[in-house]
């Protein structure tokens, strides 16, 4: 026979104002199985919890119902108190008579009646609660960081500096990401390469970091503390162990007119290449698509000139399995294409801007390469079409961003600031040049940001025109920019030498596929979703996976670095313990009834259900049943609702518990 204790909270006036708490406690006392019922002003306070603990010992209570606020608020508090009094914490339930009753109703009579019914439901439920043991799982103190841009580098360095092993995986042949492509950074105008490359070298030299470049995530299994990650190391065709990075192969390769993607196709590279001179690791890759040896079977010059003999045309992709305890996702972004509309994309593209047909209409990142001292022009601003210095440059903001009709409604956050920076860089390099900026609003929240933007207007004389551009077309060697100035209410036409589009920031292509491998959620633009917009901004809803940088939403370098360090701190918090405790809300199979149809296996979103063979002593197979791995199970219960023979049960939400609640009505 159960001896249930019911504790009704006044919550000061919050509950007591509309609910007659004394009557609720009185009615609860009459319910079968209830041995003790009382009300108190603040149950969650120290004396309130003391009252609860005292009653458990004195009244020899077996189960507890606290009728107070939402379990989302204080379930943990009361379960802890119950545990301190010697009861299993899962024998305590909360009846929500605040958020679901006193706060949403005015009629005292009706609200009291409802509160009594809610308490009744929970009393019936708690009777059927079972003692659940806390589940502990070990923690593998090794982290995986996906993406080697500034976010991934920062997170990897922080975790490695704390003394934990880190595996850093980068898709490209070199780490560095977009920050390595930038010329100077706002609002200080310090050289991006100068602050980035030392960090890249730190990663390469760190004893705790294993770097896998030119590699991708193939598969992710497991759960918090115990992930198994399969990494595909793509064939470099150059042996990383042997190559010394001398670079002779690059100079001798006859295929040397391939557009260099790192330079936004402005410069050229050879078929065997490193993306940029400061690459980490400084080991070339053979681009098999363009290499003569791979296309025709002849050539092999690089192999002949390579002193140590590192070039290996036979090399194949390799799969590496790494056990890790936590994962930081930092896959970054790419820019909205100003070329033709990408196939299958909901995004519409910009036909009115020539769809990338006018060579001197470039995007912001291309301008960064033009302005960069290590870029294809050595830092001179020259037009891609004829190599002449442009005098009139038009910058157009919000290309793709904040344009619902084009498929993206969000603000890309960084464009206002980098456009202001571009006008400055242009003016510093072309003293008699004039920059025009078409903009909707200038959004400059950030330390020193507004001052920086003002400087571009007040000192560098950039002309800001509030309004959008309707059309661009080529006229001789000029580009005619047709737009409107809505502040003055007139149409504007500017003959420009160069047009720079501040295109929207988007998640990487394939961000959705990676999310599916990781089991994390993403929004309609494929930005990864954090667990809580305010209070859990770096955690994923999937435990043990953390987010850093633009893959979660547009942000600038300082925000990215902060988020990366925050993600690293979360990983370190996790690694500070040897064992993890988790809620024991997991499914269990009753093997006797299970017929082995494995319908549960098909619906389980976590792959927590495995086949288990039941054999007799002689080893003869009796039957194959389902088995739920409690470490992987997240406790959604979809298997239970699916099971045709009702052989799988979710602890804490059994059929018995649910039906007793319905029957209590």
């Amino acid at each position, binding site marked *: 026979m159960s001896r249930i204790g019911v504790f009704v909270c006044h919550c000061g006036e919050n509950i007591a104002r509309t609910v007659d708490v004394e009557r609720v406690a009185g009615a609860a006392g009459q319910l079968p199985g209830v041995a003790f019922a009382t009300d108190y002003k603040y149950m969650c306070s120290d004396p309130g919890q003391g009252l609860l603990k005292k009653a458990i010992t004195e009244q020899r209570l077996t189960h507890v119902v606290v009728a107070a606020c939402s379990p989302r608020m204080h379930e943990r508090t009361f379960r802890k108190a119950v545990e301190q009094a010697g009861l299993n914490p899962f024998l305590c339930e909360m009846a929500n008579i605040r958020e679901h009753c006193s706060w949403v109703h005015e009629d005292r009579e009706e609200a009291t009646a409802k509160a009594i019914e809610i308490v009744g439901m929970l009393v019936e439920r708690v009777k059927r609660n079972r003692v659940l043991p806390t589940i502990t799982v070990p923690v593998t103190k090794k982290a995986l960081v996906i993406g080697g841009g500034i976010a991934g580098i920062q997170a990897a360095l922080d975790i490695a500096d704390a003394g934990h092993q880190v595996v850093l995986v980068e898709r490209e042949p070199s780490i560095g990401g977009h920050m390595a492509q930038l010329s100077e950074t706002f609002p200080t105008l310090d050289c991006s390469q100068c602050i980035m490359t030392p960090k890249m070298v730190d990663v390469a030299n760190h004893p705790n970091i294993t770097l896998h470049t030119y590699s991708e995530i193939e598969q992710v299994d497991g759960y918090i503390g115990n992930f198994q990650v399969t990494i595909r190391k793509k064939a470099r065709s150059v042996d990383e162990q042997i190559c010394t990075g001398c670079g002779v192969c690059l100079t001798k390769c006859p295929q040397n007119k391939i557009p260099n993607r790192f330079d936004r196709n402005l410069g050229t590279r050879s078929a065997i290449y490193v993306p940029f001179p400061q690459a980490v690791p400084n080991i070339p890759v053979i681009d098999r698509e363009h290499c003569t040896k791979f296309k025709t079977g002849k050539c092999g010059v690089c192999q002949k000139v390579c002193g140590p003999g590192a070039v290996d045309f036979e090399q194949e992709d390799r799969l590496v399995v790494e056990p890790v305890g936590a994962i930081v996702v930092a896959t970054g972004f790419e820019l909205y294409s100003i070329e033709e509309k990408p196939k299958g994309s909901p995004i519409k593209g910009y036909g009115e801007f020539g769809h990338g047909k006018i060579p001197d209409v470039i995007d912001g990142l291309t301008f960064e390469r033009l302005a960069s001292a290590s870029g294809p022009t050595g830092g001179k601003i020259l037009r891609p079409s004829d190599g002449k210095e442009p005098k009139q440059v038009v910058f157009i903001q919000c290309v793709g961003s904040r344009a619902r009709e084009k498929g993206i409604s969000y603000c890309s956050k960084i464009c206002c600031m980098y456009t202001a920076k571009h006008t400055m860089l242009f003016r510093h390099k072309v003293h008699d040049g004039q920059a025009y900026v078409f903009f909707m609003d200038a959004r400059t929240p950030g330390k020193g940001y507004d001052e920086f933007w003002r400087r571009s207007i007040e000192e560098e004389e950039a002309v800001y025109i509030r309004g959008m551009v309707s059309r661009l077309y080529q006229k001789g060697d000029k580009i005619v920019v047709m737009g409107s100035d809505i502040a003055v209410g007139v149409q504007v036409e500017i003959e420009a030498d160069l047009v720079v589009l501040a295109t929207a920031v988007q998640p990487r292509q394939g961000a959705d596929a990676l999310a599916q491998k990781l089991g994390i959620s993403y929004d309609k633009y494929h930005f990864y979703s954090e667990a809580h917009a305010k209070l859990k901004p770096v955690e994923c809803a999937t435990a043990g996976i953390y987010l850093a940088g633009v893959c979660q939403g547009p942000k600038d370098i300082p925000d990215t670095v902060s988020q990366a360090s925050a993600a690293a701190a979360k990983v370190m918090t996790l690694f500070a313990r040897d064992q993890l405790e988790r809620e024991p809300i997991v499914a269990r199979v009753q093997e006797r009834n299970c017929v082995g149809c494995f319908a549960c296996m098909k619906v389980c979103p976590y792959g927590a259900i495995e086949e288990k063979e039941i054999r007799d002593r002689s080893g003869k197979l009796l039957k194959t049943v389902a088995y739920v791995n409690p470490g992987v199970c997240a406790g959604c219960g979809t298997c239970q609702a699916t099971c045709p023979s009702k052989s799988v049960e979710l602890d804490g939400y059994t059929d018995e518990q*649910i039906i007793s609640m319905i*029957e209590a*009505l």
Partner: protein
Amino acid sequence: MTVHHAKQKHDFEPKIIAFVCTWCTYAGADLAGTSRMQYPTNVRVVKFPCTGRIDPVFILKAFQQGADGVLVSGCHPGDCHYMAGNFHARRRFAAFRKLLEFIGVDLQRLQFSWVSAAEGGKWVEVVTELTEQVRAMGPMQEFKALALEEQWSGRLDTPELQEAYQAI
């Protein structure tokens, strides 16, 4: 000056049971509370980890126990805390509704909706709407009739049943 309307008394107050997931709709209902929104007292909430856990049997059980309306609500498609539970639920209920319709339950008594943790207002709307709709429909008699009939299950009082019996 605020005018307090005298609360309208109705002849019939329906019983509504809501099966909700803990991550979205339960939290949405909590938000309605913290925002002090008002809605009818008819609804009783049963919390699940996920709509995927909701067995259609629970809905039948609710109607059997005298519920006049049932609401099932979880996360929006794509927002499931457990990735895909709400999709399984949606699929299950699409089929289950057909079955209920077949046995003669007015589907206006069973509502399926998505209410996120941020949609306290939507929770109020959904609950109020369903309560008023069911109130207008009157008490749910079908299951009471069935329960009565169950007691007399030996009777073959329709020509169809007679014919079927003869054919055995």
